[in-house]
């Protein structure tokens, strides 16, 4: 029974494999959050400002989708991207791109639902001013998103938290391939299955530290932005 290095040793020695895994985790989750923001923020803002039949039901559905089970999303994306599936020709299965797609599906409803709530609250508050400014619907959406930009950071962080913590979807569509699709969470799952619980716990602590660091960075950007915006 060989004794492998501990997570602390890997961090202190600057282990290249560990840093590649951290880099991939950040690349996949941040890309997914960026794509999900492109979808979720306009969608959420649009729902906040538009009245249409079935809107209440749609909002309930959107809120419920925040709790999409990752393993189900993973399976659905797997079947879609498989060579035998409808999008098989792109050859995306078992690549980081497939992981980004799966996490985007998981994160977009979170960002959309939180954006909808934020924008709707703002809209109720500033409806008169915005109406007086005589902006078109698109102008209103843009103005409200701009006004809400610091609050929306929280929506993005909630999405990032979901993506960074998730293992069920990416292990199915990524395949946990060493040096290619292995992320922090799938590495933790692997080390647990190899019975190397101390290394798994150590990697878990590294992951939590990274999530805290990303949140601290977002917080200071937000504070700096708020100060300069007065």
């Amino acid at each position, binding site marked *: 029974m060989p004794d492998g290095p501990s997570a602390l040793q890997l961090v202190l020695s600057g282990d290249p494999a560990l840093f590649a895994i951290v880099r991939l985790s950040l690349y996949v989750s941040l890309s997914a959050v960026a794509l999900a923001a*492109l979808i979720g923020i306009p969608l959420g803002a649009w729902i906040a400002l538009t009245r249409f039949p079935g809107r209440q039901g749609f909002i309930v559905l959107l809120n419920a989708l925040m709790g999409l089970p990752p393993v189900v999303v993973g399976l659905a994306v797997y079947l879609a991207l498989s060579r*035998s599936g409808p999008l098989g020709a792109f050859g995306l299965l078992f690549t980081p*791109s497939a992981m980004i797609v799966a996490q985007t599906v998981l994160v977009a409803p979170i960002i959309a639902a939180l954006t909808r709530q934020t924008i709707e609250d703002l809209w109720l508050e500033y409806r008169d001013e915005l109406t007086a400014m005589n902006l078109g619907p698109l102008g209103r959406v843009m103005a409200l998103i701009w006004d809400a930009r610091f609050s929306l950071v929280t929506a993005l962080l909630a999405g990032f938290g979901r993506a960074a913590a998730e293992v069920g979807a990416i292990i199915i569509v990524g395949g946990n391939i060493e040096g*290619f699709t292995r992320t922090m969470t799938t590495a933790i799952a692997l080390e*647990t*299955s190899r019975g190397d619980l101390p290394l798994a716990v150590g990697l878990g602590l590294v992951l939590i530290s990274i999530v805290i660091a990303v949140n601290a960075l977002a917080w200071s950007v937000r504070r700096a932005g708020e100060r300069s915006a007065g």
Partner: protein
Amino acid sequence: MSMLTRRLLIAATASLVFASHAVAQDKSIVVASTTSTQDSGLFAHILPMFKARNGIDVKVVAQGTGQALDTGRRGDADVVFVHAKPAEEKFVSEGFGVRRHPVMYNDFILIGPKSDPAGIKGSKDIVAALSAIKAKGADFISRGDKSGTHQAELNLWKIAGIDIAKDKGPWYKEIGQGMGAALNTASASNAYVLADRGTWLSFKNRGDLGIAAEGDKRLFNQYGIMLVNPEKHPSVKKDLGQQFIDWLISSEGQKAIAGYKINGEQLFYPNASDSGA
């Protein structure tokens, strides 16, 4: 949806597809294999040698044998490297695999708590050992995931004349997970479990577990490799995949397999030259 959003979405989708094409350009294959070959550390030992020789990256997706064969069947892997000969022969006869090559073997061992509630420690008769476990109602963890090890376990119950689907009691727990998870569960609950020797030797969370029974001929565990049929799935990289198979069954590849040891103990025994294996 605004025009801008739509454009951004299209750009994002396009960049995803481009990124994947860039990846597809380099020399790499996807091998669907079993948790035992990965968890034991065999791939980490032999793949760098293959890469140095042929310059091909091998991306291993470690699954149970049943799932790995299914991945091949769907065309999502170029090569399948597993351990359940009847299932492999079916895979080839159905036209999903080109040809099955024997690669190596090791053996299954029965793992159990040192307290040995079934009283089978040191047994060389796996059938008698399993019968004793059932008679005493000692806790037993089954993979329950259609993996090669699970299929071997089911076969051993059958040889013992026990219809496990009907005769199982609360002592028999199917966890539906990989080898490592099954060993973790056995370790936490002091239960018996059938394992492949390779995963056991590299497994670290042993707790109070040890080998309860080994050395029975019926515990033989043969591994085979197959190229996924490019006629079924044109996306299969047949030349690169065949290079990997050829290397693995060459004398160089076979030596690399034999050279993988943990604490001086060899984990896998190459036997590609044994055409009946």
